[in-house]
C-alpha cells in the first residue's frame, strides 16, 4: 500500500467514523447517547424512591423567632425579600410560610410553629386543579406549573392549610429559580431548586444554623435518614390528620 493510499484510508476512516458518530448523536432529537457526567442532571426525572419531608419540633420553636420566614423570603424573593407587591393589601400579599400560635384554651398551653404547604401525599389542590397546573412530583414535592395555571384559585379554596397565595399585581423583582407571575397561584416549593442540588430548604438551613434547630429535612422513605429516625423515636403529628392527606411536613409537641 502506497503512502498516498494509506493517507486516503486514514481519511476515509476518520470521515466514516465521524459520520457514524454524528449519526449516533443525532439518531433522535432529545435522546442523549453520551453522558458526560454521572451526577443526576436537572432534566433527569426525579424518582419516587425518596419522599422529601420536614419535621418541626415545636418544643424548640420560639415565638419571637422568624428565621424560617425571613430565610424563605430572601431565598424565594417574596415579602421582605422583594421590592414587589407594593400595591397589594396585607391580605393580598404572598404568604409562603407564616408563624402560627396554637393555644389550648383550657390549659393555656401554647406553641408557635411555621405553617406552609404541607406537601400532602393526597393533595386536594392537585385534585381540584382543572388544568393540572397543581401537581405533585413523585418525590412528594407539591408545585404549581406557572405556564398552565389559569388563576382560577380553586386550589386556594381546597387547601386546608391556607398555604397558597395568588399574585395580585405585576412583579419585577424575582429570583430566576423561583419564577412568580401576576394572575397565578404560588406556594412553598420546599425549595425544590436547592433540594435538587442536594441542599436543605432555606427555612431548614436557617433554623438549623440558629440556636433553636427545630427543623429536620430528609427522606421519609429512608428508615436510616435523620428525619425517619426522629419520627421513629418520638413520633410526629400531621395537621388535620382527620383529612387523611398524609402531609410530608410533620410536627412534634403541638398538643404537649
Amino acid at each position, binding site marked *: 500500500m502506497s503512502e498516498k493510499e494509506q493517507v486516503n484510508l486514514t481519511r476515509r476512516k476518520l470521515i466514516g467514523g465521524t459520520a457514524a458518530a454524528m449519526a449516533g448523536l443525532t439518531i433522535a432529537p432529545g435522546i442523549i447517547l453520551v453522558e458526560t457526567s454521572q451526577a443526576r442532571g436537572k432534566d433527569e426525572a426525579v424518582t419516587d424512591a425518596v419522599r422529601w419531608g420536614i419535621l418541626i419540633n415545636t418544643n424548640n420553636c420560639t415565638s419571637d423567632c422568624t428565621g424560617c420566614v425571613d430565610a424563605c423570603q430572601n431565598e424565594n424573593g417574596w415579602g421582605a425579600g422583594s421590592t414587589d407587591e407594593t400595591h397589594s393589601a396585607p391580605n393580598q400579599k404572598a404568604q409562603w410560610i407564616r408563624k402560627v*400560635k396554637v393555644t389550648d384554651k383550657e390549659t393555656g398551653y401554647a406553641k408557635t410553629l411555621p405553617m406552609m404547604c404541607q406537601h400532602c401525599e393526597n393533595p386536594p389542590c392537585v385534585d*381540584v386543579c382543572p388544568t393540572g397546573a397543581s401537581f405533585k412530583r413523585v418525590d412528594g414535592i407539591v408545585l404549581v406549573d406557572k405556564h398552565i395555571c389559569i388563576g382560577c384559585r380553586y386550589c386556594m379554596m381546597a387547601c*386546608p392549610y391556607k398555604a397558597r397565595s395568588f399574585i395580585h399585581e405585576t412583579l419585577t423583582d424575582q429570583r430566576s429559580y423561583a419564577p412568580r407571575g401576576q394572575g397565578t397561584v404560588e406556594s412553598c416549593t420546599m425549595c425544590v431548586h436547592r433540594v435538587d442540588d442536594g441542599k436543605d430548604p432555606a427555612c431548614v438551613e436557617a433554623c438549623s444554623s440558629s440556636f433553636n434547630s427545630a427543623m429536620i429535612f430528609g427522606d421519609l422513605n429512608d428508615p436510616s435518614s435523620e428525619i425517619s429516625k426522629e419520627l421513629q423515636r418520638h413520633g410526629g403529628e400531621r395537621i388535620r390528620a382527620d383529612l387523611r392527606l398524609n402531609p410530608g411536613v410533620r410536627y412534634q409537641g403541638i398538643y404537649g
Partner: protein
Amino acid sequence: MKKIRFSEIGGFTPGYLLVLGITGLLAVLGLGAALYMEHSGHWVTGMNNEIVWGTPHVFAVFLIVAASGALNVASISSVFQKTMYKPLARLSGLLAIALLAGGLIVLVLDLGHPDRLIVAMTYYNFKSIFAWNIYLYIGFFAVVIFYLMTMMERKMNGYTRAAGTAAFIWRLALTTGTGSIFGFIVARQAYDAAIYAPMFIIMSFSFGLAIFILMLMTIYHGTDRELGDRILFRLKNLLGVFVAAVLMFVTIYFLTNLYATEHHGIAGFILASDHIYTKLFWLVQIIFGSIAPLAILYNPVTGTSRVWIGIASTLVILGGLAQIYVIIIGGQAFPLVLFPGMEVSSSFADGIVASYSPSLPEVLLGTGGIGVALIIVALAVKVLRFIPQSLADADVDPHYSAD
C-alpha cells in the same frame, strides 16, 4: 287549544331601544371592569388570599345556576308532556343559553389569566370537578341549541321529546356539577357536604323560574301581546313550590350542622353572629327572599296581581343572590380549622374571620354578565321566532271556557 303562532318582536320601539341601551351599557361596563382588573392585577379588587372568590363569582354562580333552572319550563313541556307549557319552551331554552353565557363570561374574565382560556380547553385534570364542568357547560350549549332547533324547525319536530329529555338530564348533571364545586371541598367547614348538589338543583328551579316569569311579563307587556292569567298563575304557583323547597334544603343543611358539635362554629357564624352574613341570611335570603315571596304568591289578593307577582319574582332573585353570597363569601370568611378545639393566631389572620369588601370593578363585572345575558335574549327574540303571538287563556288552555 288553538295552534300557537310564534313571531319575532317587531319594530325598534323606544322601549326596546332603552332595553338594548341599558343592557349594552352594563355589558360594556363589565368588559371595562374586566380589562381594568386584568391590566392592574387583582389588587384593585376586594378579593384577597383568604376570600379568593368574590362578588364576580356570586354573580357567575347565580347566573349559571339560574340558567339550568330557566330550562325547566321547556322540560315540563317536552319531558313531562304538559301541553300548556309548550308555547313557553322556546323562550325557556333561549333564556337558559343566555344566562349560562352571561355567567361563564364573568367566570372567565375574573381568571388570573383569561388569556389562557385555550389552556383550560386543552389541559384537563379529570379528577377536577372544574374540568368536568367545562364539559358540562359546553355540552349544555350544544344540547339546548339542538333542542331549540328541534322545536323551531318543522322537519325536526319529531326529535323534540328526545332532545328535551337529553337537555333535562344534562341540566341536572350541570347543576350537580356546580353544587359539587362546593360539596367536594373538604378543607372548609361550610362546604364538604353532599347536600350542595341537590340544593343547587332546587335553587336553580327557583331562581330560573323567577327570572323566566319576569322576562315573560316584560316581553309581553313591552310588545303589547296578550299574556293570560292561567299560564302566569300556574307559573307563579310553581315558583312558590320551588321557593318552599329551597327553604327545606336550607333548613336540613343547618339542622345537620347544628346537630354535629364539629359544625357548631360555622352554623353559629351564619345564623347568629355580628357579621354581615347573618344579616344577609335572615333579612335578605329568608325574610325578603323566601317568606315574603311565599306570602305574596299564595295570598289571594297579591297572588293574582301582576305587579305583586313581579315583586315576588324580584325578591326571589335578590334572595338568591344573597344566598349565594352567604355560601361563597361567608363560607370562605369563616376561619379554617387547622387545630380543632385550639385557639390560633398568626400574622395571616388565622383564627379570625376574613375581611372582604366588594369593589366597584367586581360589581360591574358581575352586572356585566347580567347585561350580556339580557342582550342575547333581546337580540334573539328580535330576529328569531321565540315568542308566541298570544298567550291568552283561550290560546293556551285546552280546558278553557269563557265564564
